[in-house]
């Protein structure tokens, strides 16, 4: 059988995963969520909000797709590729989305922003010129309790324009 089987040792799975482009071997608890495992191993940009799949603060890209870290068992990331907010850009070299969020004033307390930026990244990867409705739909799982979502939508539009190259107008 080609079936991949991992067995726990003293309640832990040993998994191999690429995090932000770097191959890692992690010990994850048998009942641990991807969110808890990432935070326990130091990726604290991934935030723990509701822990029930409602708020989107824990969103990370798993194999290029935004998923809820609180709902995904950590072991299911085995042999996968994860991008957390730390992998998108740095203070010295921020991603255009991060720049756009700051410039638009879309960040208040900032707790929801990592998840929101990763959801936006996925949107722009597959829809480089999104409409406002498409942006709102892509972010409908990322709750923000500080703002009214206006600035974030503006930020995504601005980042989209920047990433496409200046001069092209956004769709209505």
């Amino acid at each position, binding site marked *: 059988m080609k079936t991949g089987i991992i067995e726990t040792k003293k309640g832990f799975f040993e998994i191999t995963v690429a995090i932000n482009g770097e191959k890692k071997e992690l010990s994850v608890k048998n009942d641990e969520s991807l969110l808890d495992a990432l935070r326990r191993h130091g990726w604290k940009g991934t935030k723990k909000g509701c822990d029930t799949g409602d708020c989107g603060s824990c969103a990370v890209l798993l194999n290029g797709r935004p998923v809820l870290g609180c*709902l995904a068992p950590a072991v299911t990331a085995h042999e996968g590729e994860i991008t957390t907010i730390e992998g998108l850009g740095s203070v010295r070299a921020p991603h255009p989305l991060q720049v756009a969020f700051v410039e638009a004033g879309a960040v208040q307390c900032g707790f929801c922003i990592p998840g929101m930026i990763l959801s936006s990244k996925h949107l722009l990867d597959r829809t480089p010129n999104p409409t406002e409705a498409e942006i709102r739909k892509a972010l409908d799982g990322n709750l923000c309790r500080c703002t009214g979502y206006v600035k974030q939508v503006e930020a995504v539009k601005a980042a989209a324009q920047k990433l496409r190259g200046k001069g092209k107008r956004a769709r209505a």
Partner: protein
Amino acid sequence: MKNIKYYVCPSTVKEALAVLLSKKYKAMALAGGTLVSKTLPDTVETYLDLKNLPIKGIRLQGGNLVIGAGATFDEIDRSKLCRSWAGGCVSRAAEACSSQLVRNMATIGGNIARPHSFNIFPVVLLGLDAKVRLQTKKGAQLVDFQDLYSSGLGLRPGLDSLITEIVIPVKTRKWKCEFIKLAKTASSWESYIKLFFSAEKKGKSVIQARVAVGALSPRPFRAPEAEKALLSGAGAEAAAKAFAAELEAARAGEYRSSAASSLFKRFVNSL
């Protein structure tokens, strides 16, 4: 979840079924993981991850719409085939599920594997006369969706069998359909009621009608009196009244009955 000892990620349905049926593993299938991961029974000792199984994709086969059990809500929402089928109600149902982050993970197979009041697809699949292909220890079986949750089938998908695909019959392709989720917010998983209406007309007569109701109980049900009223050409008012009576009998309560029958009346008037 404390009792999990193994993680298994097979690449074929045959291997997956072997693990499910093995007494050693005490496995439970994990598709998108949005429901199972937080509600895993203590008796389960193995995560059987279905992500590498060839049960994805959406295609036409013999004129039928075939949706792989591993297709995510997002894939169904964005599928041109689903958007063009039965007025796009299959895609609209997928879109009505919770949030984009959940739609990226949750699969149609996982959504129908176990009955639950708030699952989106059961009411739509019931209304579209869908069939479900299961892989069991006796081989592949194609069962009517309406029989999936019946005890007579003797199967528990995800524990002793696997759903591999959903087949929506060609006859429904041009049906006029409407799916409605009545909930507190668009992204609420919980809903007051889920409704599926469909009708096909020939000349001035309605020649087929389906009225299905979800969220009132773990298993969706059809409303035969409302369907009969629609087929008899009794008119929107009479059809809505018949539907309201059926909802009252199902203990839907005044608000749900009133709202649902008004929505049904609107649908009948739109025909």
